[in-house]
């Protein structure tokens, strides 16, 4: 009997991972990103959320390799005098929390609806998929803008600051579930005619158990690929919303609100306030997409057929 670890060590998954430099490098970078996001409160030089730490006299100091830079602020400071490095760490943390949360919501809704549509078929399928079509035909940004505008009005701009993270998570989560629903539905339709499903029916298992315990685990591989890419998309949506001023407030910046806050200073010479968080975001989204592509290739091996 092989242990799980041994099995994993011999698997095609690990093998192809170790042969793919891009995948390995992306993975390493991604792990570093996640580590930073997780440990931001402990590794950042200062807490940018705490106004006690901020000294407006320090504003717009350039990164340390430029004239006028200071060792104290390796990447310079922004217009409010916050350390850029710390705001980027904290911003990444906020962006990732929102991204993961939003994908969890998308996946939960999408998987349940997609599974039901695919397995039950007929009218259920028709109704759910038309719903998905409608949701899809609204540009999601528009939906998100609309919803966050309503939230801001209802809860007021003041309390919005407190509720911003959960609200953004829900807004982005609700706006993109059809992706998951469609993917799951397609693979469920492929699975449900396989004989093991018929075997479960002949045993007399109830539909609920067949759907969730037999079909779903086999349909989940397809979701893995889109989940990674959806995290990147959610982070981008959040950045876009924040950039438009509908997302995270500047006092609790995400990467998007940092970019927004910095752009006014771009032409006055303080380019780093907006460019550095921008690069940071691009790199993060890029490694996720690269990993997602690799995953898609690995999970679709062209098997030898005699």
């Amino acid at each position, binding site marked *: 009997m092989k242990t799980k670890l041994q099995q994993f060590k011999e698997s095609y998954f690990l093998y192809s991972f170790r042969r793919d430099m891009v995948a390995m490098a992306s993975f390493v970078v991604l792990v570093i990103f996640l580590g930073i996001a997780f440990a931001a409160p402990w590794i950042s030089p200062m807490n940018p959320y705490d106004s006690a730490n901020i000294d407006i006299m320090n504003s717009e100091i350039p990164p340390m390799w430029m004239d006028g830079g200071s060792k104290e602020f390796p990447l310079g400071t922004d217009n409010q005098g916050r350390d850029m490095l710390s705001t980027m760490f904290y911003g990444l943390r906020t962006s990732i929390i929102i991204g993961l949360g939003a994908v969890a919501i998308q996946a939960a809704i999408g998987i349940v609806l997609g599974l039901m549509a695919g397995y039950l078929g007929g009218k259920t399928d028709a109704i759910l998929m038309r719903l998905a079509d409608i949701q899809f035909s609204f540009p999601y940004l528009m939906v998100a803008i609309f919803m966050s505008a309503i939230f801001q009005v209802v809860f007021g701009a003041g309390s919005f600051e407190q509720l911003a993270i959960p609200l953004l998570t829900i807004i982005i989560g609700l706006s993109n579930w059809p992706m998951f629903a469609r993917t799951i539905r397609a693979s469920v339709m492929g699975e449900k005619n396989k*004989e093991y499903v*018929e*075997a479960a029916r*002949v045993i*007399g*298992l109830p539909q609920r158990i067949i759907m969730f315990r*037999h079909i779903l685990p086999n349909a989940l591989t397809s979701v893995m690929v889109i989940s990674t890419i959806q995290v990147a998309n959610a982070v981008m949506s959040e950045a876009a919303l924040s950039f438009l001023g509908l997302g995270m407030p500047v006092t609790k910046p995400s990467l998007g609100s940092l970019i927004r806050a910095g752009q006014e200073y771009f032409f006055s010479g303080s380019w780093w306030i907006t460019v550095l968080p921008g690069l940071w975001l691009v790199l993060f989204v890029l490694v996720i997409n690269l990993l997602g592509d690799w995953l898609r290739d690995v999970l679709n091996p062209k098997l030898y057929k005699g």
Partner: protein
Amino acid sequence: MTTNHTPLLRVQDVVKHFDISGGFLDQLRFKGGIHLEKTTVKAVNNVSLFVNKGETLSVVGESGCGKSTLARLILGLYRPNSGKIFYDGQRIDTLTHEQWLPYRRKMQMIFQDPYASLNPRKTVRQTLEEPLRFHNPKMTAQEARDKVDFVMEQVGVDPAWIARHPHEFSGGQRQRISIARGLILDPDFIVADEPVSALDVSIQAQILNLLMDLREKHDLTYLFITHDLSVVHHISSRVAVLYLGTLCELASANDLFNEPRHPYTRALLSAIPKVGEKKAKHIKLKGEVPTPVKLPSGCVFHNRCVYARERCKKEFPRLIELSNSTFVSCHGVEEGWPMD
């Protein structure tokens, strides 16, 4: 069709048509005025047969003739459009999911494709314990474990492999596990849909021997579906021949192989390649197999039958019983047309 005692399974005039017309736009027709037209596959048409306790009834026919559909109708996976199905005298085709449950223990199924019939994410233990636990909620873990071990040994899979996943087994071993799943509830009746068709000859022989062995040990009754006539001759007591969803002939295996009556049965038997026999002239059929979407009128075989006459195109031949409880559906046999 009548019998003097209650058969274990009786299928009476069962019809199953599938609607494959798709959405509104697919159904739209412009010829002869704009109207909607449904497309239906007539998979099973008025089939009647019975299976007595302890026997093996084989259902044979070419691919697409409705064998698997018939199996799924019997097990309640599809509902017939019309007709009745009785198990042990009780009508089962109208039961609800809950009412079916007691029959699920008695009627089980073995599938064709050893690669698709086991859930790839479940270990052998999970696959085999699931039906046990579901039907016997009070069973202890030890009892379940013992039962699984026992059945695994019976089908010739080492119980030490219980924690493995299907992909670690060969096709023949998977088929054994699939058989074990069919047996674990101690059923009386098993529908086997092409259980050996996907296997190599030497593995096929192992599985056939196993199935015959289990039949004796557990007093099983089989409905055995296959397209391979040499397998049929080997394992069955009676045979039903299907063509385009219609029953052509139902007879004991010996009678059928020694003296086939229906013209289609004759053509089918003459086409089996036998090892070591130089090729006998096989009966050539005319034309092509029609699709089950557009069934021919009258006898569905008439466009290919060399004996077809005018009556065959108009009138559907009814199933008649010949002397030795052979049933045939053919005008020629009924009227004694010369057939050589």
